[in-house]
């Protein structure tokens, strides 16, 4: 809670140095950032601010672009939904990336140099996943993910992707829910049987009671009514007090 957007607890020092200096624009640092993205995929850490810096380098030097790294960054940003990270990454990609595929596909046939039709396709596929997540359609998220082999390739580099997503979904759900039907939650988490019971019980610490799953009270799902009181600052009285000195009657 309350951490600046550019803060990442596990960020190595040399990345910090690059980010704070002009080297963040130096095309030679591209490989450093790429390795860092690979490391994030592997160790389940996440550093949006650094990833955006890499996307910016790609934006300035399109010839350095590595599709795989871009999709890995996007997949990583899915794991922190509903934060705006996915959108912020999209903003730094080329403007045609979201345009209907047919157009860019045909042009890539006539000119292979364009070469990023596959990237467009991948990005748009991931955008579909993101849309499902943001709209809380978790069932649809899992069925889309499982329904296309391309997704398996896209998320392959991000270790424990499914687990990360489950934890994230559980966290988001726990904000809004005190009790939820077991069947519903199974759908949201794409788990059933003992796997479900283990995840809900051990990982989340929630209680399964028959057909209901009970989520312990937390700050967000309490939904307690409050009364907002007025904040009075001394400054507001400046005029009154000054007035008292100006006109002693």
């Amino acid at each position, binding site marked *: 809670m309350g951490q*600046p*957007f550019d803060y990442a607890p596990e960020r190595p020092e040399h990345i910090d140095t690059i980010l704070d200096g002009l080297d963040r*624009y130096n095309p030679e640092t591209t490989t450093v950032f790429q390795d860092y993205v690979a490391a994030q995929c592997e160790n389940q850490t996440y550093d949006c601010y650094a990833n955006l810096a890499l996307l910016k380098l790609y934006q*300035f030097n399109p010839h350095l672009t590595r599709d795989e790294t871009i999709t890995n960054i996007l997949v990583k940003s899915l794991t922190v939904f509903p934060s705006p990270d996915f959108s912020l990454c999209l903003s730094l990609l080329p403007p045609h990336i*979201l345009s209907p595929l047919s157009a860019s596909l045909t042009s890539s046939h006539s000119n292979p140099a364009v070469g990023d039709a596959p990237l467009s396709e991948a990005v748009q596929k991931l955008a579909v996943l993101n849309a499902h997540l943001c709209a809380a359609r978790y069932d649809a998220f899992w069925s889309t993910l499982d329904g296309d082999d391309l997704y398996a390739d896209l998320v392959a580099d991000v270790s424990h992707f499914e687990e990360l997503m489950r934890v994230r979904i559980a966290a988001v759900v726990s904000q809004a829910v005190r009790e939820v039907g077991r069947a519903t939650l199974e759908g949201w988490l794409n788990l059933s049987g003992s796997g479900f019971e283990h995840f809900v019980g051990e990982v989340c610490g929630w209680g399964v009671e028959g057909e209901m799953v009970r989520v312990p009270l937390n700050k967000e799902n*309490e*939904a307690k009514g409050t009364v907002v009181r007025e904040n009075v600052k001394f400054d507001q009285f400046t005029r009154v007090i000054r007035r008292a000195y100006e006109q002693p009657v």
Partner: protein
Amino acid sequence: MSLRQPAPPYQHGEAPTQAPEEDSDIEEEAMVRDYQEQVQYEDGIDGFDPGMSMAGGATDIQAQLIAAATPLEFGANLETKFQSYDNYCNLFHYILNSDGPVDPEMPSYYWPWDVIDEFIYQFNSFCSYRQRVALKNEASDDITLLRENPNAWGCYSVLNVLYSLIQRSQISEQLAAMKRGEDAAPYAGEYGNRPLYKMLGYFSIIGLLRVHCLLGDFSLALKTLDDIELNKKAMFARVMAANFTTYYYVGFSYMMMRRYADAIRMFSHILIYVSRTKNFQKNASQQYDSITKKNDQMYALVAICVAFYPTRLDDTIHTALREKYGEQFNRMQRGGPESLPLFEELFRSACPKFISPTPPDFDNPEINIDPVEHHLAIFMEEVKNNMWSPTVKSYLKLYTTMDLKKLAGFLEVEPEQLRNWLLVNKQRSRQVRWSEGGLLDGQVVNSSDLDYAMQGDLIHVSEAKVGRRLVDWYLRNLARTY
């Protein structure tokens, strides 16, 4: 800040006023006082030596300085734009790479702002134009010319200028010192002690904010302002256009980071300031014209943000908003699919003219999409995601507990759909809001006066009631008794 330079006499009537404190009664008085102070400085100008130390090419340099801060003619052709780019390169080369600091007489107090402003404006419009030409793909000399000059107005050189000015002037070190409450002079170095460099450096930071935002890098845009304190003492507050630009881009970046409360705070601050100083500003009519347009844009953005973060606006702003966008404002707050075209229209009219930093692909004209469309598409995703929240909330407000299936029946949707909406609305009501520290700092807070939790199919609703606001009323009545 102690930068009390005497304002030169040709600025009469344009004296920079200081930005007021947020929304308080003493503002106006403070502004008037400031204004008078400034005017007095103009009277006491006798001792002011503009520091003309250049011999020979002085007039030549003067002409260059003036040209650099002057807009190009409307519809200027490409050669003129290339030429203008070269001129900027020469001028900045002269300023940055001469033996030691140079000391030409500034054509006006506002020159450093004007030149950075114009420089970025030309970069912006050049990139937009280039993209448009490539997309249209009509055979013309322009395409040939643009193909032959891929490096003109390159993003690296533009950034290079801005960063070099910042480094030369050691403005970041100076600002950091001021933040600590120290005197900035010892940190300024040979260059940074001179007003020319100091101001160029300072406004380059704001220039960077703008360029990053134009390129779609909103977090870096906000990060850029880390050294600058956004308050009435900020140096940019003395130049109205700079003041305005800063708040516009900061607010916009916040909006794209989905920090609507912060965006509204930024826009409100500057809009209130403008409305209260209108009478002073009118004298400086030229500056005022450009401000009017941005003013309307910011009202449009406030309208958008309020749809995401329903809140009580300052009365001045609320009234003006109703006047300008009353109908749209209401319909956007109501949400639903009918509101989508309105969001689109207002976003288009109020967003910065986004650019793509690299030369377009002239061989594949159709892929050179206008970056504005790209950012619009990204933004609209979020709008769509949020569009049912007003409906859901309007019903929840009526109950303290409610059955999910029953409510779904009222709304004529499947219960599962409603469950999703409730989850979405809950997520969207948790927004990051600034409380202290850098612009990127912030805490997650509940943005809504409504909160709820689901217990199976039962929705528990709670409300945050706002207590009566007495102080304002008390002060007003107290003032009346005098």
